């Protein structure tokens, strides 16, 4: 935020109270992706909103959780790679693309050994990939649009 409109109240509320809670809620939404309302895209948007709130509050100063742009691009590519890994792993195991029934997960919960267990875990792998991709790309878009003075 511009130095002219700075406010101690905003800093306290945003940094001490809102941002940690928003990040925790985003991870909660991510972990509930395949069972209840939620998912990778929504969780990524929520966590990216927390990061953007820090940027809007602090602007250029130290502590604004600035991430280098190269690292953001790498993170988006890693998210895409996790998605592709989750999609191609069933192909290697002898099933269709994105058909997780044969992924060997025997430790998951009381439904071990059933196809739905493996499908749930496979969807979760893909959600994690989408999560990283969405966080990285949204933060990168903000940085590129607003960061001509930043670099």
């Amino acid at each position: 935020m511009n130095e002219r409109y700075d406010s101690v109240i905003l800093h306290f509320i945003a940094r001490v109270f809102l941002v940690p809670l928003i990040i925790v809620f985003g991870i909660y939404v991510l972990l509930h992706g395949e069972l209840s309302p939620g998912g990778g895209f929504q969780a990524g948007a929520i966590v990216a909103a927390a990061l953007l709130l820090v940027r809007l509050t602090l602007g250029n100063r130290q502590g604004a959780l600035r991430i280098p742009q190269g690292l953001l691009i790498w993170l988006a590519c890693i998210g895409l790679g996790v998605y592709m890994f989750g999609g191609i792993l069933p192909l290697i195991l002898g099933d269709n693309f994105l058909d997780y029934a044969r992924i060997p997960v025997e430790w998951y919960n009381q439904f071990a050994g059933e196809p739905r267990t493996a499908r749930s875990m496979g969807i979760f792998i893909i959600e994690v990939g989408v999560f990283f991709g969405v966080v990285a790309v949204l933060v990168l878009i903000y940085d590129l649009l607003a960061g001509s003075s930043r670099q």
Partner: protein
Amino acid sequence: MSIAGDVFIVLGLAFMVITALGLVRLPDFFSRVHAVSKSETLGITLLLLGLILHEGATLLSLKFALILVFVAIANPVGAHLLTRAALRTGQMPWRKEERG
């Protein structure tokens, strides 16, 4: 318990109607933000309290309470920032007679 919840909900709705009225009728930016921040926070608080009374002690009530905490914190902070930015960009508070 249900009747108490109804009373709370109707009170909260009344405060929200007053908020909307103030938003339309008040003369300048600062008094409008004042109307929105104060009486709307109270209206939402009463509304959610009424819903909690209806629901009883369940997980849904806990979620209502969380919404209440977030609204009660975010709404005044937003109003504070809006008025601060308006004042520092030169918006003058309204007076009854214009001074030359």
